[in-house]
């Protein structure tokens, strides 16, 4: 017989109390792990969403992050294609890269002549085929649908609008699914207002010239003639300060999650955006998004990319940033969930400690005479203390293991229910899933923390038991 066997038997002495305490611990641990599993999945979903658009590593002009939105033309990468090709030419970088693609973002004005509406917008030029490939990235296996980029395979002058932009430009009714703009149907134009024929003519001219240019280049996705009710004209100031206008055909809308973005976002092909801002033949871009095969390579990739740029483009004002740096919302969200998790964990630990301390105190009170007896028989104070701490540890261990088992069962149950929800800033519903079993670090942490704090909670009572005067303990009734 060993001391831990005595401790285990003592726990069975008042089974109801021991079970109640273990269940309290188990429920707390289950709640904590489920929230932790939900947090982990949510963070993975969010990261997957951003990585599918922006990649993990972003190469930009060194001042673009601070000043670029004011003058993107000035703070763009001079020869973005050369940078991209250099990345893909270096084997140790290329082997880690899933996709490297240029992005071009600049403010502009979009108008819809047929309705005489206009709106300041943010043009986002993307390589649709690259973006389609980026949207297949799913390193963590999250339940997030893989949809090809809406511009993929579409004519080069196609545009995708934020729902707010589409609503304000009043193109919704001309779209295949007018409901994409939102629940409320867009209002008709103001009655009897004559259409500005100059603008209409401009749109038609631009449309025709765009079609001719595509045909001349032998493009596989030639621009088509744009029906006026789906045509928008985008006006941008070129790098030389000359206004440039290009007509796009709206093929649909895509919610961006935030209203501010929905009210400003216009996604077009990279080449079309580049032609609009820099003129034809340019290879400039505001960013190069690099999506990695494995997110664990992030820091290595950042360092190696910096080294490569310094070697191959000496003196070029380029900066390498992570997606977390470019989108501070990611770290803010992670920090918020970590804070909530910490708050919940603190509450649960407090409940566990209070319950265990209470149980051990009650047990000591009931066994006061027994404590006097074993001390008389020659067991040291430290052994008495050890005995009660062992009981608390075992109780916490059993409760935590039951809690872990409970959380795994709940995980299977919740994930099988196919629940969904829309987190703040999400463009569409996300699956509500929890991953407890895959978060082994969190599970191990919960086990250690619960056991350590439960044991600590028993220290004052156990110490008091060990310091009982033997004669008083033996006389206790």
């Amino acid at each position, binding site marked *: *017989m060993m001391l831990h066997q*005595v401790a285990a038997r*003592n726990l069975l002495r008042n089974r109801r109390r021991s079970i109640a305490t273990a269940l309290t611990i188990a429920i707390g641990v289950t709640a904590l792990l489920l929230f932790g599993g939900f947090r982990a999945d949510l963070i993975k979903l969010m990261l997957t969403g951003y990585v599918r658009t922006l990649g993990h590593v972003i190469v930009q002009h060194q001042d673009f992050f601070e000043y670029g939105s004011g003058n993107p033309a000035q703070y763009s990468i001079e020869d973005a294609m050369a940078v991209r090709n250099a990345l893909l030419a270096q084997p140790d970088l290329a082997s880690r890269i899933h996709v490297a693609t240029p992005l071009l973002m600049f403010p502009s004005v979009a108008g819809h002549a047929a309705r005489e509406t206009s709106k300041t917008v943010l043009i986002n030029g993307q390589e649709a085929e690259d973006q389609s490939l980026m949207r297949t990235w799913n390193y963590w296996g999250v339940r997030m649908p893989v949809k090809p980029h809406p511009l993929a395979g579409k004519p080069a002058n196609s545009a995708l609008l934020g729902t707010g932009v589409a609503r304000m430009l009043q193109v919704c009714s001309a779209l295949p699914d007018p409901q994409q703009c939102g629940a409320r149907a867009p209002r008709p134009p103001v009655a009897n207002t004559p259409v500005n024929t100059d603008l209409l003519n401009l749109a038609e001219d631009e449309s025709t010239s765009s079609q001719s240019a595509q045909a001349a280049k032998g493009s596989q996705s030639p621009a088509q003639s744009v029906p006026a009710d789906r045509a928008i004209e985008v006006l941008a100031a070129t790098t030389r300060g000359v206004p440039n206008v290009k007509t796009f055909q709206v093929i649909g809308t895509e919610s961006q999650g935030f209203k501010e973005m929905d009210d400003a976002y216009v996604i077009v092909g990279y080449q079309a955006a580049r032609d609009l801002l820099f003129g034809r033949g340019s290879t400039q871009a505001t960013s190069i998004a690099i999506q990695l095969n494995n997110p664990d390579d992030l820091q290595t990739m950042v360092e190696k990319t910096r080294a490569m740029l310094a070697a191959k483009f000496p003196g070029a004002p380029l900066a390498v940033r992570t997606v977390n740096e470019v989108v501070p919302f990611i770290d803010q969200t992670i920090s918020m969930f970590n804070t909530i998790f910490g708050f919940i964990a603190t509450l649960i630990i407090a409940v566990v400690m209070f319950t265990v301390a209470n149980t051990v105190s009650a047990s000591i009170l009931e066994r006061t005479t027994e404590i006097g007896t074993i*001390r008389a*028989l*020659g067991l040291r104070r430290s052994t008495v203390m050890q005995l009660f701490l062992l009981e608390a540890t075992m109780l916490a261990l059993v409760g935590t293991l039951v809690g872990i088992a409970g959380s795994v069962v709940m995980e299977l149950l919740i994930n099988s229910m196919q629940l969904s929800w829309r987190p703040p800033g999400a463009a569409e519903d996300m699956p509500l899933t929890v991953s407890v079993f895959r978060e082994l670090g969190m599970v191990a942490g919960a086990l250690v923390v619960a056991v350590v704090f439960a044991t600590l909670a028993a220290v004052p009572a156990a110490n008091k038991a060990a310091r009982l005067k033997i004669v008083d303990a*033996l006389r206790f009734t």
Partner: protein
Amino acid sequence: MNVVEFDNVSKSYTTGSVELPVLNKVTFSIQAGQFVVLLGPSGSGKSTLLNLVGGLDHPTSGSVTVCGEKFGQFSDNALTDFRGAHIGFIFQSFNLIPVLTAAENVEYPLLNTDLPAERRQRRVARLLAAVGLSDRAHHLPGELSGGQRQRVAIARALARKPKLVIADEPTANLDSRTTASILDLMRHIQRSHGISFLVASHDERVMREADVTIHLLDGHIQQIEQTPRSTGRSSSSRSRSQRPSPSPGVGP
């Protein structure tokens, strides 16, 4: 050789501002291998004296020496280790651990020793056989009669081969037949192993078994008396305050 030596030992308890003397300058000694019975009415100081002999409490003044060691010099751990190694306890209410079997209760005092498990088991089996409970080794205390429980308690008291066993009213909760058998057992063990027994009791039958009886009254030793059935090594004595004559066996 003296197993217990009390030299001018006093013990008082303080309740608020009132000091309540329980033992008053008690001096006596117990020789090895004797069966000593402590007699006295309730409140005479019997339990306090037993606690002081067992190292469970500290005297207010005077010195207590057991097996040649003065308790006053011991730390709590040293006193605990000494108690475990040299003194066995038998309680009126048996004080067995209810969740442990008879064998495990006997083994409990051995947990703090270096004895390997196999030797511990052998010793436990021998002790249970000695008290006639081999067939009850795996029974919980709740499944044993009062007499059987006290036998387990006796076996437990002997687990670490003590030189002295202290028993506080060991037969108070037993019927007369069981009392007789328990007394026989204690006497047998005392004689066969040469262990000293210090027993506090009101029971006439216990007194009849004594080699020496110590009469306590109001914290004083009234009389130390060698009973007729003892070997004649001891003589009657009184507490030091009454200047008794020294004796080779029991005396001040």
